[in-house]
Structures are given as structure tokens and as C-alpha cells.
């Protein structure tokens, strides 16, 4: 598999674009802040993206769409999409978005302004109060007329978007896929996770012995994908980010825990299966992986269970969770962390586990708070969602 990543952008509390994200990683600057979401008194830290309230989208108005819009305007993304549409036709470009909130922020707001029990005029937005909102908005915003779908598998959503995109591309349904994800902070999410007692009142500390819960964040990101095996000229013509190398999706693994809606499989069987699946489709041995980005939410359960599986499978790879930079961005975690892996490969820099002081006693992971400069060829990222939905992605760097 050689699904070339032509260009990519990421917007989160760590930075408005990849350039800012790199700076946050290099300077080890977390984007987390104390919860100041209007209407919420929950004592926690969040990863909030500033300025979303100012973005006006007419009948598409929602915080989720505003963030999707902001990320779409970053870097070379929009210009590259436009050039590809001209080249192959807008109907040969597809959209696969991952999201769990989908714009429920807008529905929450609408319910505070009900007009005699009905939606007020400005909230009568069928395409927003709808789980497919993200793909509907992005397709319209980008002028893309090919197949568009929203994947909603909770926290694995925008990792699975890559798997779906890869299959569409290798089957020839479309020539290009704009794969991505978006999720925003809202009361449902804050109060929902709080009701499950999963939220920490401190800045999160993934993998740490003293971690006591997650921090929620919001993010949007995109990766523009072309199948270099079936479309080598197109992939080379639109070579991406750095002149010296390109990065591709080389493999993916998808599995289910079959255990519990909000607690992972106690032995991490589904997680292990997803990671092995990615290695199998990539036809690689575990020893070849140089960097692993864990799902690493900072929950007591996930980090220990996942950490043990990662340590067992990849004892020599650098490993880290990067969620202390921007929080757990739910449906957007997949794309956010895929981009971190892709960028790690481009820069030969494995990010550390920010906020780590003492590693959990039960873990023998090759991790530290510091970033590590190290030549990297293969990187793997995990995203695990409620309902026991797991996805692992494996990326490869090719030098020119």
C-alpha cells in the first residue's frame, strides 16, 4: 500500500496550523488551559482553539463547522485541493471526515433558545443538526462533488477515515481523498465524560504513575491522499511538504474489543489486534517501527492496558502520548495524531510525552518527556473509541 500524503494541516489548542504545532512540540509548550467554556463549571483543563466564535458561516453556523473551516484555510491545503480538482475533476475527489460531536454544539445552543418549544428560525439547519454535518460542510466548503461521508466511531473516527480513504483510492472510486476530522468542545462532551468520572481537574499526564483522568480538547485536521500505486504521476506531480521525502500510509488495522461501551478490553486484545493488523497489511515486522504515538488519553485504564501492549510489541521503538499538547480531541484525535506521526517522519523527530514525570510502575515503555531527534522510517499511531472501536495506522517515509 502506498497512499501518498500530499499535504496536511492541523488546528488545535497546540497551534492554528502545522507550523505552530511544530513550534509547540519543539518548545514543549502545552496548549491546555483551565476550563473556561461558557455555561460549564466543571473543574478541569481543556484544549480550546481561540477565535472560533468570530467565524461566520451563515446557514452552516456551528462551532464544529467553524473549526473545520479554520483548519481548511491553513497552509497549502485549499490551494492544493483546488489544483487537484482542476486536474482530475471535482467528482473524482472524495471526502471522508471523522467526528463524534458533529455539531451538537449548535443543537445544544438551539435548545437554550427554543421558541415556544420549537427551534428558532436561525437554528433550522437540517444539514447541521445531523451526524453527517462534517462531511456535508467540508464537501460544500471545498467544492468537492465526489462521494463524501462522515465516520462516527467515537475516538477512532478520523483514524478510520484513512482506512476508508485508502480503500476508495485503491478501488478507483475517486483519484483523491480529502481525509480528516473535526470535534469541538461543548457541554455534552464535558458533562458526559464528567459523568463517567473520566475527566481530570489537573493538566493531563498521559502514561504517568499519578495520572488521574483526561483533558478534553477540540481540533480539526486534514490529509490529502492519492494512491501512488495506481496514480504515480499524479502523486509525484503533487509531491508534498518537503522536497527530500514523501510520506505514505503503508498499512492500517481495525478491530473491536467486544467488551464494554466505555471501558477497554482488560488485556488490550482489540488494541493488539489493530496494531498487528496494521503490521500485516504493511507487511512489516514490529521491529521496523521507529516511533509509536499511543492513544494515551491519560485515563487510568487506557494508558496501562495500551501501554503494556505497545511495550510488548515495540520494545525498541520510541513511544509517546502527545495528548498533553492539545487534550483528547475525540473524533479528531485520529487525524491530529496521524499528522503528528507524518510530521515526525518528515522531521526525524519523535515527540516526547509532555507532562510525564514518573512512568506508571506497570509500564516498561521506551518513552520520556523529551523529544528525540532520531532517523525515522516507519511510525504507528493508535486511536481507540467508545464501543471498543480500534484503529491503528502505519506510515512510511520514502526518501527521494
Amino acid at each position, binding site marked *: 500500500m502506498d497512499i501518498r500524503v500530499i499535504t496536511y494541516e492541523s488546528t488545535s489548542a497546540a497551534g492554528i496550523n502545522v507550523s505552530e504545532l511544530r513550534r509547540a512540540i519543539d518548545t514543549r509548550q502545552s496548549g491546555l488551559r483551565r476550563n473556561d467554556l461558557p455555561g460549564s463549571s466543571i473543574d478541569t483543563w481543556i484544549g480550546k482553539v481561540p477565535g472560533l466564535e468570530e467565524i461566520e458561516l451563515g446557514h452552516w453556523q456551528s462551532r464544529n463547522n467553524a473549526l473545520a473551516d479554520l483548519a481548511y484555510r491553513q497552509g497549502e491545503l485549499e490551494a492544493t485541493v483546488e489544483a487537484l480538482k482542476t486536474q482530475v475533476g471535482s467528482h473524482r475527489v472524495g471526502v471522508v471526515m471523522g467526528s463524534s460531536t458533529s455539531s451538537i454544539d449548535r*443543537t445544544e445552543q438551539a435548545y437554550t433558545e427554543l421558541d415556544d418549544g420549537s427551534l428558532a428560525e436561525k437554528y*433550522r439547519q437540517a444539514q447541521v443538526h445531523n451526524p453527517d454535518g462534517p*462531511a456535508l460542510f467540508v464537501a460544500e466548503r471545498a467544492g468537492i*462533488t465526489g462521494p463524501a461521508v462522515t465516520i*462516527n466511531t467515537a475516538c477512532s473516527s478520523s483514524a478510520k477515515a484513512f482506512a476508508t480513504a485508502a480503500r476508495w483510492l485503491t478501488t478507483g*472510486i475517486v483519484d483523491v481523498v480529502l481525509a480528516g476530522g473535526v470535534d469541538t468542545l461543548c457541554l455534552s462532551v464535558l458533562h458526559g465524560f464528567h459523568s463517567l468520572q473520566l475527566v481530570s481537574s489537573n493538566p493531563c499526564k498521559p502514561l504517568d504513575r499519578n495520572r488521574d483522568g483526561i483533558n478534553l480538547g477540540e481540533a480539526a485536521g486534514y490529509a490529502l491522499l492519492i494512491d501512488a500505486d495506481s496514480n504515480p504521476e499524479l502523486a509525484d506531480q503533487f509531491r508534498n511538504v518537503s522536497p527530500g521525502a514523501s510520506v505514505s500510509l503503508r498499512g492500517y488495522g481495525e478491530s*473491536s474489543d*467486544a467488551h464494554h461501551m466505555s471501558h477497554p478490553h482488560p488485556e488490550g*486484545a482489540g488494541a493488539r489486534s489493530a496494531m498487528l493488523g496494521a503490521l500485516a497489511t504493511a507487511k512489516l515486522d514490529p521491529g521496523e517501527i521507529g516511533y509509536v504515538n499511543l492513544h494515551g488519553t491519560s485515563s487510568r485504564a487506557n494508558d496501562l492496558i495500551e501501554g503494556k501492549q505497545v511495550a510488548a510489541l515495540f520494545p525498541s521503538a520510541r513511544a509517546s502520548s502527545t495528548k498533553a499538547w492539545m487534550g483528547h480531541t475525540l473524533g479528531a484525535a485520529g487525524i491530529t495524531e496521524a499528522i503528528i506521526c507524518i510530521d515526525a517522519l518528515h522531521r526525524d523527530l519523535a515527540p516526547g510525552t509532555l507532562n510525564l514525570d514518573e512512568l506508571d510502575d506497570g509500564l516498561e515503555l521506551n518513552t520520556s518527556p523529551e523529544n528525540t531527534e532520531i532517523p525515522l522510517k516507519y511510525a504507528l499511531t493508535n486511536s481507540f473509541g467508545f464501543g471498543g*472501536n480500534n484503529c491503528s495506522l502505519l506510515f512510511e517515509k520514502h526518501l527521494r
Partner: protein
Amino acid sequence: MEKTDIPPLLIVGCGTWSPWFENWDAFVAKVSGGELEEHGLKAPAASVIPGTERRRAPLPVKLAIEASTQACAAASMDPAQLPSVFVSGLGDTQLTDYMCRTLASENKALSPTRFHNSVHNAAAGYWTISVGCMRSSNSLAGYGVSMPMALLEAAVQANNEQSPMLITFYDAPVAPVLQPLLHNRHAFALALVVTPTSALDAAEDSKALGTLRLSSGAGTSSWPKLGLPAPLKECYETNPAARSLLLAELLIHKNKDNPVTVPLSNGTHMALEIS
């Protein structure tokens, strides 16, 4: 490359549930001229969900699970072995309503169970947990084109992995506040088990209900009109999952060499043929 063919798939099992029929045989009987009366049940049994969980399972989850169980049984396939694609066009609006009402009030405390049930992939989650399936499971939303989108996803994956797959379409009545926008007033679910032709041996081939040929191509399409009795017609037109009634019709009557097109996106269509 204006048309992309997907290698053919055999349909080896069907399941369905709606206010008018509780399974595939009842559907076939009623649609071929029987009476279309409501059976009066508010929700299907979905008995494969363990007792304690079943009590708290929301309607969309029960719809999906009931249809899925029937389809796997009809296909004589172990549900634990099947990767799956679930699609709901509208999501669980009753739970959205509950959460938004609660959050708009003074006491914002949410029920943790109802919160984890509100994820769009609740059906996929309950299914894989109830039948012990650790294979890949997907949960999509495609609004008005949910049906062809899920079909595309499953067909592509089935061929890619050379594996049988479960595809389940389900949508429940929309909560009153959102109904003027999202319309659907009916519960409906339909599930299929499909398999690449190479994954079955000749003896099993003969048990197939039909062969499904799909292609995607440039140019959008409108939805074909179905000759259905009035309440089912409204369901077909307003319940995104019930667009799968088209598949059911084609499965019963077949349309060999006479493909039907449906919209896939603003610039593409899907052509469907069942022989």
C-alpha cells in the same frame, strides 16, 4: 475512468424490522399484496443483547441489532466472524434531545449510561459486544445518501479483504423538536450479509438470494420511485435507512441487465443491479 465497477457480491442473508413487519419473510409476504397493518410493537426484541444491557438499549440500537441478528441467521454465518458496516442517516435524536434539554436546564448532570449510548456507533458497539465480534466495525452517517454510501463502504471492504460482511441500515423516529428539519416518523432497519463470490464454495453459492453488482460513476442521479403502499412509500422517502427498500425490491424482483441508479453525491451516482 468515468465508471468504476466493484466485483460482484452474493447476498446470502437478509433481516428487517419496521412497524409493519418483523422479519424478511413477513416483509416479502406483505409487500407482495398482503395487508400493510402495523403490528403495534414499539421496538424489536433484539434478544441477543444480554438482559441488563437490553433494558437500557436505545431504539436505534435495538433496530440495528434485530435486523443484523436475522441477517446472520438467514446466512447461516457466525456473527462473531463478520466485519460490519452500520449506517444511520439521522442518528439518535431522542438521546440528542435528552442531552440538550438537560444541558439547557439548571441541573446539567447527565446519565453516564445515556451518554455512552449517545455515541453514533452505539449500535456497532452493542452488536460487537453482544455477539463477541472482534472484527472491524464501522459506523457511518451519509444523511440522504446513507444507503448507497454504506453499500459502497461494505462492498469495497468485502472485496479488499475477501471477506463476507454485515451491512446494517437503521433509523428511528425523530424527536419532536428536530422533526420539522429531519422529518422521519418511522422506525426501520434492514441488514444484509454479503460475500465476495470467491469466498463461498459452489454448494453454498446456490443458497445465495442474489448477486449484487455495483458501480459508481460521474453525474448525480435522482432516487427511483418505488411502487410501495403509502406508509412504506413515506418511509422510503423520509427515512434514510429505508432507502434500502430499493435493495429489497430488487432482491425480490431482480433487475438483471437493467441497472437502477441512485445518487451517491452531488457529482456521482451508484448503479445497482441484482440478478
